[in-house]
């Protein structure tokens, strides 16, 4: 569908977007409560693991990386769409980003925060997490810089830092709007947060320069982070992991899952907070198109992996890829293919990608599919490696399911909290889209 311009005035845009900061609908409070319940599941599961040791997890000698790594990669992937939508679509001057990019950026920051929990959770002795970082010490012990896991530490922390700064800079003018609509201590609070923004020409000039700069800086990071994550697997000689197509394939998958998650999160929020004027079918249709494109790339990558394994005449590659289709985890493979390759095809039909219930349901299916994709990669290759004597069946334990649920709760909690504290739609950019308030127009009312 063609672009839809918000049919409001500047003042109405301010009020509509900020109103959620002043009142909380009941459904919002219920959602926060659910998030807290899930978090407490996760907290309890982790407590059990800390008390009784890593044996509480379902991992075994063969499948030493279970759902912790699966979920870690899943959340890192979710964290990609925000920067893609905010930085890359900004650079290519795509108009539809305006309504959705702020919430997507928030999603990125909180998803990376969630992913960051998992290396700690996976440690067993979580208090020794500082071993990850190269710090000067008397024993001259250093981290292994040749390990892709170490590259992860640097890549993800860089991505997180740049994403947070980019996110924060973008919010400065909007935080000033919130300040101007607040009183008392709250006003002071937002005044500090927006660095005393007054909207002068000089401030806007610097703002635009900084925003463009960070957009250009963040864009390559979208590619680099998930590429480095993919190398956790691709660098190994493990059959099914050692694959040169992994970096772009992981990046495409990340964007795919991230865009689907934006639909999943923003659609209920839009309905709950009455934002249909600012976030509408036009935005969701474009997100669906992004998912279609990246679904196509994923399908291509799945196909190429299987073809080259067949072509290679490497018995281990041939074995693992056939086992994925017909072995113990065939259900995971089929679920992955259905969710990531087949279900999104419905969006080829304009009616389906402009129909909200269909959009929401397919986006949920994609979220499941992308978790299954990582499960399929991580678990099948380790459960069925080179030595048949080491073949084991892995199934996540209750502790691992609890931690997974806790991560969902943790993510949703931060995201919901953000929605009540900061404007989730970019007010200043919305105003660039609305018709100027000339005499006789809505804005002049």
């Amino acid at each position: 569908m063609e672009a839809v311009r918000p049919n409001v005035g500047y003042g109405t845009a301010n009020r509509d977007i900020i109103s959620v900061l002043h009142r909380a609908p009941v459904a919002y409070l219920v959602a926060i409560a659910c998030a807290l319940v899930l978090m407490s599941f996760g907290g309890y599961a982790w407590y059990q693991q800390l008390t009784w040791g890593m044996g509480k997890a379902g991992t075994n000698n063969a499948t030493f990386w279970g759902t912790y790594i699966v979920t870690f990669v899943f959340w890192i992937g979710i964290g990609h769409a925000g920067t893609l939508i905010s930085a890359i679509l900004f650079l290519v001057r795509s108009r539809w980003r305006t309504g959705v990019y702020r919430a997507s950026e928030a999603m990125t920051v909180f998803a990376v925060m969630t992913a960051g929990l998992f290396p700690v959770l996976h440690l067993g002795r979580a208090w020794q997490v500082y071993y990850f970082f190269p710090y000067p010490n008397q024993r001259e012990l250093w981290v292994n810089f040749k390990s892709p896991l170490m590259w992860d530490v640097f890549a993800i922390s860089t991505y997180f830092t740049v994403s947070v700064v980019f996110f924060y800079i973008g919010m400065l003018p909007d935080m000033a709007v919130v300040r101007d609509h607040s009183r008392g201590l709250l006003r002071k609070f937002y005044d500090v947060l927006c660095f005393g923004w007054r909207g002068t020409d000089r401030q806007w000039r610097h703002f635009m320069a900084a925003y463009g700069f960070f957009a250009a800086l963040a864009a390559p990071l979208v590619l680099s982070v998930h590429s480095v994550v993919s190398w956790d697997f691709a660098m190994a000689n493990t059959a099914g992991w050692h694959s040169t197509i992994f970096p772009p394939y992981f990046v495409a998958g990340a964007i795919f899952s991230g865009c689907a998650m934006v639909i999943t999160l923003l659609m209920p929020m839009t309905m709950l907070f009455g934002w249909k004027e600012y976030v509408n079918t036009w935005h969701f249709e474009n997100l669906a198109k992004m998912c279609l494109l990246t679904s196509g790339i994923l399908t291509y990558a799945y196909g190429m992996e299987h073809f080259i394994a067949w072509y290679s005449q490497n018995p281990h590659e041939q074995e693992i890829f056939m086992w994925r289709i017909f072995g113990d985890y065939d259900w995971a493979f089929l679920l992955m293919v259905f969710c990531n390759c087949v279900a999104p095809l419905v969006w080829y039909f304009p009616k389906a990608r402009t129909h909200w219930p269909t959009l929401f349901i397919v986006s949920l299916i994609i979220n499941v599919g992308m978790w299954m994709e990582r499960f399929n990669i991580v678990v099948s290759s380790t459960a069925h490696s080179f030595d048949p004597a080491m073949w084991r069946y892995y199934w996540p334990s209750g502790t691992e399911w609890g931690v997974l649920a806790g991560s969902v709760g943790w993510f949703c909690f931060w995201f919901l909290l953000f929605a009540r504290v900061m404007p989730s739609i970019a007010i200043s950019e919305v105003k660039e889209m609305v018709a100027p308030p000339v005499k006789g127009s809505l804005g002049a009312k």
Partner: protein
Amino acid sequence: MSGHHFDMNAYIEPIRTRTVPGSVRGAALAAVGVGVLGFGYGMVASPVWAWGALLVAIVWTLGMAQGGVMFSVVSTLTWARWSRPLKRIGEVYAFTFPLVWLALLVFLVAGNSIYPWHEGTVIEGGAVPLAPHADGAWATKETWLSLPFFITRQLLGIGFMMGLSFLYVRSSLRPDLIAAKQRLGNDAPAWWSSFIGGAASVDAEADRSMKTQATLGVLLAVTYAMVMSFMAFDLVMSLSPWFYTNMFGGWIFASSFWIACASIGIIALLGRDWLGLRALVKPNVMHDLGKICLAFCMFWAYTTFAQVLPIWYANMPEETDFLLVRMTLPQWSWLARTVAVMCFLTPFTVLLSRGIKKMKWPFVALLSLILTGIFLERTLLVMPSIWWEDTFPWHLFLGVSVPVWLGAIGAFTFVVTTILAKVPVVPITDEKLQPHPWDVHVHALDGHGHASEGAHH
């Protein structure tokens, strides 16, 4: 339609008299002559190198020609406006397909002996046995790399992609040719009637064209990815039968799109006055094209690195061999370094500059560097697999590879300029050639107390 005034006739009227400048036509034909002579010399001096040089030229030209059509497809599917003035140039590349397909046919029928897996191979050391090295592996290569299957699937696959592309280009051209024919009458070239058929109404055809382009565009995007990937696996990667990397197909089709963008930029800049594009192809369009080239430059480096790093790290013999030959043997390593400089270091550094993208000659020079860099990259992929001497054969490179490549450029230029001279050089009936309505700024008072509109670029 916005308030922007677009004079369609400005792009129709020149068709009456426009011809390819004699210097361009002469240079193109001379290049073809040089190519034929070079190939002839190669067949005498070293048939293996000559067929390899022809393969490089085919892969390079096929990628660029198909990439040109894909440039149009991407513009259509993304509703992009900035690239519309360049869309037709890319579409015209489809007219080179018959030549490229014929060259491929000749190569596959007469030059297949350079494949080491072929029983009648002329490569030093004889045919490579294709049976698996390991127990328990399926013998897949004997099936996949059997000559009849190999030749048939390539000719049919690439032929299908070309046919689909031609249908797409025809649907894009139709409404424009109808509009132009209404104006030109009998001055319109006779061959247009085969494109126009019985259609009469410009508006109806323009609507239908957009729908057809959107449908065929999606099909083409899928076909391009698949056919170009298998072209890369078969024609190039199988020259080293034991080597495999699943990124290879995507790597080749992405760089093909890149050189198409670069070549479109060169034609638009050099032919700006001849084609009357000055009003539409403004510096900001070139700036955007430059940014696309920069993005693909980074993507090329990224996908190259994505292959080199895991192969180097895992250090498995069936993979490292391919890299070691190209990166460490003295007869090839200089070429690998040159490719890195021409395909990444130089374009990346220079294209960071905003100004250079808006300057005609420096930008043309840089785009030419990219085209040359990818030619050298394809040479680096093909030649070390079939040339086992321990010195680099400069006489063959300069006497065969370069002339054959120049011949391909000459033939390509001849066809593209001949067609461009006789079609509307921009999609005149495409409403996205006009600025977006939101970019047409409304000035409340224009100084005379009247509301006015102005196109904003």
